[in-house]
């Protein structure tokens, strides 16, 4: 398990030592979801051998992240980028090794997942922000900002399911990016939504970075990676192949994929 120590400040000054420490982390999945399972498998513990229908999505991954760093994760599809993000967000747990995250996380991954179709936009904001640890009063204070940023003021009492997919992403980004947590995880969620809003999101991310947040960014866009990140992690076949300055990592990635 990871430690639950939280910092009171999002700025670099508030944290000493690494905020994220991943040591020899590995996680395996079943190849075939409908495969047979038995009670024995379930309770066999975390260190048992790999079964024939399983594969390691990530293995022997180690790195540490200092507060305020901006890290871009690159790699082809299916090489473990999103899984790594989920491990850092602690929504899945490592089968071997350890992942410790010593500050609060605002995860922009599967962001629309936390919303409930039948509840109104207003109720959803309170619910999602609450699930990520905000108190009612904190949400009250930020409610106006959240709605304004999402440009959704006319739909406060509309059930979430009736929003367009663009509005959904806008609302979700707006809530999560207002969590004011020291660590920000961004998956390729921003591919949806129009150009104008994407630029607004990027401005917001830049603002958070300038405020001393730690960024963990997964993208296929070289431009975006160079724009925000200083350090890169290159994942291939579930292994961390290269950990270095973003330009070096991108050059290696380009060389490997033949671009």
């Amino acid at each position: 398990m990871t430690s639950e120590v939280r910092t009171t400040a999002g700025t670099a000054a508030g944290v000493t030592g690494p905020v994220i420490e991943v040591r020899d982390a590995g996680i395996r999945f079943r190849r075939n979801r409908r495969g047979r399972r038995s009670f024995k498998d379930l309770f066999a513990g975390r260190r048992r051998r790999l079964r024939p229908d399983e594969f390691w999505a990530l293995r022997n991954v180690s790195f540490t992240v200092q507060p305020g760093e901006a890290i871009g994760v690159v790699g082809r599809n299916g090489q473990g980028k999103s899984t790594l993000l989920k491990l850092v967000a602690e929504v899945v747990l490592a089968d071997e090794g350890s992942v410790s995250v010593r500050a609060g996380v605002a995860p922009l991954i599967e962001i629309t997942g936390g919303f409930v179709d039948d509840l109104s936009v207003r109720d959803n904001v309170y619910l999602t922000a609450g699930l990520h640890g905000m108190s009612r009063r904190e949400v009250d204070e930020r409610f106006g900002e959240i709605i304004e940023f999402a440009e959704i003021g006319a739909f406060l009492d509309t059930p979430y399911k009736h929003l367009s997919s663009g509005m959904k992403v806008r609302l979700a980004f707006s809530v999560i990016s207002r969590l004011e947590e020291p660590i920000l995880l961004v998956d390729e969620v921003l591919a949806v939504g129009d150009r104008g809003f994407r630029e607004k999101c990027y401005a917001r991310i830049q603002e958070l970075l300038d405020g001393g947040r730690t960024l963990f960014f997964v993208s296929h866009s070289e431009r975006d990676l160079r724009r925000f990140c200083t350090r890169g992690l290159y994942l291939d076949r579930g292994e961390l192949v290269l950990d270095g300055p973003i330009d070096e990592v991108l050059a290696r990635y380009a060389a490997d994929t033949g671009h």
Partner: protein
Amino acid sequence: MTSAALQAPLRERATGSRRYRQILWLLTSRDLRVRYSTSALGYLWSILDPLVMAGIYWFVFTQVFQRDVGEEPYIVFLLSALLPWMWFNGAVSDSTRAFLREAKLVRSTKIPRTIWVNRLVLSKGIEFLFSIPVIAAFAIFGGATLTGWVALLPLALVLQAVLTAGVGLIVAPLVVFFRDLERAVKLTLRFLFYASPIIYSARDLPEGLHFWAAFNPLSGLFSLYRASFFEAELDWLLVGISAAVSVLLLAVGLAVFARTERAVLKEI
């Protein structure tokens, strides 16, 4: 949005057990709000089910058959175990879908996972508390009087919360892997309804079954609830066994839950 506001130190977020309670309450109140606000008869629906069942048993056992089980007034005797049963039954059968129904939420937040079960126990428990006026009305109407043992009601509530959470924590993760368990659980609950002293008293069982019935944690639990109206129903041996079994089930539930948690998160 100014960057000054961003750089201001953050307020301390609630941690540990305070955060747990905060989120537990958030989800529970959402459940209750959805239940009571989406239909005009909200509250009525939640008590209609036990009322109809109680009505049926009352009719069958007082009007059709010659009844020689339970106590007078029978309707109060019946409801004093039937209402807690609805809590147990509702929470356990809902826990078969605890993860599946909320898969999206579970996948996207890192809140302590036992909350997904405990909020069911809590919201069904609150519904049970809301249904207490019904039994009070029947007691006044039927001429049943409270005994001093009503002071044990808080103990009964705690005991039932422990028992229900224990069973829920075992059922919820296992159903994710073995979907058949969902139906098996429903069947077991139906069996348990008749195997527990709800329409009869534990004292009405044949001599040979007393020993075995004691291991059903619901026997002691219902005897505790019923003591509020019927002193003779209180059986400390049953209560003691019930408490021991409940605590044991909770321990097993927590162990099963901790052991299967990482597999559950991958599966949903």
